[in-house]
């Protein structure tokens, strides 16, 4: 299996083989991250730019470290504080980044499809680090990597995703990925936060957490955003916690040794209780650690595809 894409835009269009190649490559990069010298020369001389149109610390830092551990030069641009304010278009901003000699752009944008526009228009590699309510592919890849690492497989597992399914790009990417890999995915949350037609993605819908948690191998909690209150999609955070918050009692309903996952940042006491977040079943810190290895794999594979294209052109 040879990687051919110059962009990673979403999980939806990846094949099972492509997902497996990324996860396998990430295993090697995880080994690199355990060394005293956590660096390989694979992307020496290459330039990676993080172009973030939305505030982000975790994902940006993870991509920065991933690029640095590949020996690439990396710069992060928080666009809210720069040219967009002055009226520059998305494409012009990206063209400027390209003119700086950039090989790969990691882009996060509040509009769904923004990375796709750049990927079509520009020869640089584009990695989607989250676009609107659409996809967040590297999050889903690191989630799948963590599940595979802890459970040895993904196929056949019962995975329950809890929370604001409607507004979550993490949920969408995870659903695409986990169902492709053969997991049985159930989404659960308040009806106001459940998108119409989500069952078409191959998931089961459930509105009662206790029912969904039966026999679960993985419990994936999404972050509840307080702004949903303002739009009257939730009556109160306390009520959400009462119905959908995972505490030690509810954790017991799931299979023994079920994994607890969260993309971060967590709201302790709302979607997850502290005892659960800090329990032995929580792999939330592993997700963060694995994120670097998975992003190294993505940057490395994309670079290899770009290099192949260059050789062919010669």
């Amino acid at each position, binding site marked *: 299996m040879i990687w051919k894409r110059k962009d990673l835009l979403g999980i939806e269009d990846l094949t099972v083989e492509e997902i497996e190649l990324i996860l396998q*490559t990430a295993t090697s990069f995880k080994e*690199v991250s355990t060394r005293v010298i956590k660096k390989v*020369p694979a992307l020496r001389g290459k330039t990676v730019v993080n172009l973030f149109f939305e505030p982000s610390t975790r994902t940006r830092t993870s991509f920065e470290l991933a690029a640095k551990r590949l020996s690439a030069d990396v710069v992060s641009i928080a666009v809210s504080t720069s040219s967009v304010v002055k009226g520059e278009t998305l494409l012009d901003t990206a063209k400027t980044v390209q003119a700086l000699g950039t090989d790969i752009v990691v882009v996060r944008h509040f509009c769904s499809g923004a990375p796709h526009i750049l990927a079509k228009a520009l020869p640089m590699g584009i990695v989607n680090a989250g676009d609107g309510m659409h996809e967040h592919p590297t999050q889903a890849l690191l989630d799948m990597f963590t599940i595979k690492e802890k459970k040895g497989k993904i196929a056949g597992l019962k995975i329950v995703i809890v929370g604001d399914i409607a507004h979550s790009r993490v949920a969408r990417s995870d659903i695409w990925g986990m169902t492709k890999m053969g997991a049985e995915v159930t989404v659960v949350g308040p009806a106001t936060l459940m998108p119409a037609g989500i069952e078409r993605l191959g998931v089961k819908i459930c509105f009662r957490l206790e029912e969904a948690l039966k026999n679960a191998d993985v419990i994936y909690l999404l972050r509840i955003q307080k702004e949903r209150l303002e739009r009257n999609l939730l009556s109160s955070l306390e009520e959400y916690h009462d119905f959908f918050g995972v505490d030690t009692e509810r954790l017991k309903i799931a299979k023994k040794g079920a994994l607890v996952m969260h993309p971060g940042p967590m709201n302790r006491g709302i979607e997850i209780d502290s005892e659960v977040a800090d329990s032995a079943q929580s792999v939330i810190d592993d997700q963060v650690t694995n994120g670097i290895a998975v992003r190294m794999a993505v940057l490395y594979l994309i670079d290899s595809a770009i290099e192949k294209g*260059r050789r062919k052109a010669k």
Partner: protein
Amino acid sequence: MSDPAQKLILDELGINRTLTRLAHEIVERNKGVEDIVLIGIKIGGDHLAKRLAAKIREIEGVEVPVGAVDITFYRDDASSKSLRSAAQPTEITFEVEGKKVILVDDVLYTGRSTRAAIDVVMDFGRPKWIQLAVLVDRGHRELPVHADYVGKNVPTSADEKVEVWLKEIDNEDKVAITGGQK
């Protein structure tokens, strides 16, 4: 597998004899195996390193640490077609600092894999020295690299390929030249 385009260099018995000799040479040259570690270059060299360690155990009664390096991320030709398989993890679970490292590879050709493998090892620590053991040396070096222990010197032309089959991967043991002028 009697492909007429294949010229057999070593059969199963030949490989086994060659490895036995290499193991003896390693022990003899180093007057024992104190501080010696074997590190195979994936894919191929890692299996040969394990076999050499087994032979050294027979000769000296000592268990020599065996590791394996994957050079994928250290290659200077990462995009070329020679990159045939996905990267695999490097396995060095012992201290490299101050050790006498013997790199093990199946075929020594341009020397670029050796250069990359040396870089991987150096990222784990500063060995006392590094030596190189290869099953086949086919010539055509592009870097100042030489092998300290050579199983067999095989003069080749650049359009030929030296292929190694190992039981651990291919269910049989042999070395053959393929391709070249028919």
